[in-house]
């Protein structure tokens, strides 16, 4: 099945890119591995019929936010291979243990809640019908501008505050 093949491909790309990001010594290499992981995640979004989310993920995450990180790495002149900044052996074992505990917790939640939550689902046929009648954008836009209009407006306020905060924090002091 071709969808299964692409799912495995994207999953391996995402997990491999994320792992390489954590262990790369050059921050620029880290960033590019993360972009690769985000591309693969967009592919998985397409396989899950979330086409608009996939496009927005590519444009906003892999495009805008990653370029912002790239700008900062270039601006601070960190783009060369530095000495390894992984923490020491004790802290490293502790960190891996905590991460493993998080993964175990997530798997326990998956085993416990998944079967019941999927049972009352709307199913592939309903999903296809909705995509067919409203389009990939309309499916998301309809609840967003009907039920969640106020949170949407508050989000714009959040972005405004973030813009002002970023400018205030990062500008040069007046001479």
């Amino acid at each position, binding site marked *: 099945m071709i969808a299964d093949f692409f799912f495995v491909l994207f999953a391996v790309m995402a997990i491999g890119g994320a792992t390489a990001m954590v262990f790369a010594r050059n921050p620029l290499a880290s960033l590019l591995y993360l972009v690769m992981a985000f591309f693969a995640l967009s592919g998985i979004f397409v396989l899950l019929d979330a086409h608009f989310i996939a496009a927005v993920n590519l444009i906003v995450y892999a495009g805008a936010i990653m370029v912002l990180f790239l700008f900062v790495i270039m601006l601070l002149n960190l783009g060369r291979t530095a000495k390894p900044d992984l923490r020491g052996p004790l802290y490293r074992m502790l960190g891996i243990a905590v991460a493993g505990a998080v993964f175990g917790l997530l798997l326990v939640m998956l085993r416990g809640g*998944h079967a019941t939550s999927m049972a009352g689902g709307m199913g592939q046929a309903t999903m296809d019908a909705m995509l067919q009648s409203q389009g990939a954008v309309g499916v998301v836009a309809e609840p967003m501008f009907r039920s969640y209009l106020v949170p949407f407006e508050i989000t714009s306020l959040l972005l405004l505050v973030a813009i002002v905060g970023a400018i205030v924090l990062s500008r040069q002091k007046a001479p």
Partner: protein
Amino acid sequence: MDIETYTLIVSALLFTIGTAGVLLRRNAIIMLMCIELMLNSVNLTLVVFSRSLGIEAQVFVFFVMAVATAEAAVGLAIIIAIFRHYELVDVDRFNLLKW
């Protein structure tokens, strides 16, 4: 198992890798990048559950993206401000507020 279950496992793995990155690295920029990865793995979970529990979950993906953008902008601005003072981005060296 169906594709939803496998995707949830991938999402859990990505979240774990992000957690490990935040805990293991000292470079503040890479820690921010790991947080972005964790947020995106949560997005993946939301998209999976939007298939079964209603399309509203995809609206929350947009809110998560907006929060991630704001966090990246403010976080990077803080890193730039710190770099001006100390000329480094190693979080272990920013210990002025520690005690």
